[in-house]
């Protein structure tokens, strides 16, 4: 528990390989997450959040691969670990939950068994003990009547209940890091709030760090202490959650902030339209020269179209990549 971070990503590049050529889908991505910390990764769909998460747990598969950089978990470089060592980390010390609670559970296996499997797999428990722990795990995610629910099949549960089961599975072995990739996107708004609250509380109790991934800046900033904003495969700004609303430095981040519905002032006006960022995320194969955001950026000048901006460390803490940052 010295100063070493739990997760350290350094200059990560993810290549998309076509036969002989390859293009970088993610490039120059660096961030660190300390033990028990909550860290968010935000950006529009297609900007490379999910593949970054897969890279962290060593599950990128062709045509994607890690092109450069290092990922260190608890001081050990993930790429250097054997397949068996990586498997022993996954689900055990690094867990992950996804967007689709509908499909992430095995339809022909009772949910209790799917939870119990984690104890058998990672902790070598026998099935009797594992089944008992599964009931406890289900109780801990506030599923009512867990001793009966363990026998249910996924189709017997609502979307919210299934996501609770997924959380129970993910947290079963007491991981150090929980990666949540759009964990509530498929759920109703009311259920969303419950699930997020549950996830946050459980992780806080157990000292589990969270890497929360979403296109929804509001959601991420609400859960996380620090937020990194990703655009077209690069991190363009990283700030404390409060700063990002009060004083976002990057035009893209400002666009995300402006597109959020706000309680209070603006909501009171009722009819104020939310401002969307014009245009779409470019495809990996035609990222523009210079700053990748330049075709959509109101502040863009000539230098933006030719030269990639360097990282600027802000006095207030955090970093930004923009020639004309605020």
């Amino acid at each position, binding site marked *: 528990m010295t100063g070493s971070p739990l997760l350290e990503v350094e200059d990560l590049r993810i290549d998309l390989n076509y036969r002989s050529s390859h293009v970088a889908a993610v490039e120059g991505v660096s961030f660190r997450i300390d033990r028990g910390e909550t860290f968010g990764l935000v950006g529009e769909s297609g900007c490379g959040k999910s593949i970054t998460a897969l890279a962290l747990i060593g599950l990128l598969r062709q045509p994607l691969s890690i092109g450069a950089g290092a990922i260190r978990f608890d001081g050990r470089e993930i790429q250097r670990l054997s397949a068996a060592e990586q498997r022993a980390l996954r*689900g*055990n010390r690094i*867990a992950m939950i*996804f967007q689709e609670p509908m499909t992430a559970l095995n339809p022909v296996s009772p949910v209790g068994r799917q939870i119990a499997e984690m104890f058998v797999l*990672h902790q070598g428990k026998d099935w009797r003990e594992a089944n008992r722990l599964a009931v406890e795990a289900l109780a801990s995610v506030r599923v009512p009547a867990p001793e009966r629910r363990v026998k249910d099949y996924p189709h017997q549960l609502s979307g919210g209940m299934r996501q609770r089961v997924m959380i129970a599975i993910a947290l079963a072995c007491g991981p150090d890091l929980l990666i949540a990739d759009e964990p509530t996107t498929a759920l109703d708004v009311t259920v969303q709030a419950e699930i997020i609250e549950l996830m946050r509380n459980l992780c806080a109790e157990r000292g589990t760090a969270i890497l929360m991934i979403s296109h929804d800046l509001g959601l991420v900033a609400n859960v996380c202490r620090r937020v990194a904003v990703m655009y077209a495969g690069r991190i363009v700004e990283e700030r404390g959650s409060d700063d990002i609303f009060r004083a976002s430095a990057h035009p893209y981040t400002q666009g995300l902030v402006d597109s959020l519905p706000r309680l209070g002032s603006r909501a009171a006006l009722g009819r104020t339209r939310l401002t969307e960022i014009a245009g779409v995320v470019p495809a990996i194969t035609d990222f523009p020269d210079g700053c990748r955001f330049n075709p959509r950026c109101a502040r863009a000048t000539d230098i933006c179209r030719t030269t990639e901006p360097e990282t600027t460390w802000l006095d207030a803490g955090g970093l930004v990549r923009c020639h004309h940052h605020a």
Partner: protein
Amino acid sequence: MKLGANLVIGGALFALAIFVGLLAPWLAHTDPVMDANLLNAEEPPSWIWWFGTDAQGRDIYSRVVHGARISLTVGIVSQLVNSVIGVTLGLTAGYWGGWWDDFVNGLTNLMLAIPSLIFALAIMAVLGPGLTSLLIALGLTNWSFTCRIARASTLSLKSQGYVQAARVLGYGDFRIMITQLLPNMVGPIIVIGTLGMGGAILAEAALSFLGLGVRPPYPSWGSMLSEARDQITTAPWLSIFPGLAIFLTVLGLNLLGDGLRDILDPQSRSRRT
């Protein structure tokens, strides 16, 4: 869920065959092999000899009842071997892909190109007649359909969220195959297996008829047909009853297979709706 007529009738016929096979020693009136008595040779069916007697005076009813054991053993055991081979090859080929997939595909196509009965005949010719050879020959030659189904199921299941999730949770390849893939393909595998059992019983009859299967005096339905060949006009009951037993059992298995397909195989279910 409404049970189809196929399922009920097929299930009843197959259950009857199993029942007869299991209780053969108690259901039979005489010993199927030893109780020969030339004094009552070739008796037609009567109250005493329900299905008549053969040229050596053995009770056809008792022989058909005991024959159920052999036919069902051949059907069940050989199909089990086929299913295990087919699922193992198809699942691993679909999951791992690459050269192993190419190899399994090539082997499957080869098996499909050669009629399995011809293949089994060749194996029997090498191993010689007998029950064990029969089980080996039929067990090794009819896994290609199962293999194809297992491979195709694996390919479509592989991209399912719960298979991806299992990988993320640290499951190894074998655990994924056993817990995530296999249970989700049992439906079609059972359907193919049921139909295959019927096929194996027919194949046993054919091989035994050709003198390559179960050897007389032990009664299998096929070997009984084989022995009855010469008396088909003079003593038709010698062939009618074993033939009927084969017909009803295979019909039962086919109906059962179709009935199971309706409830177990999601593809045919979606095709109908």
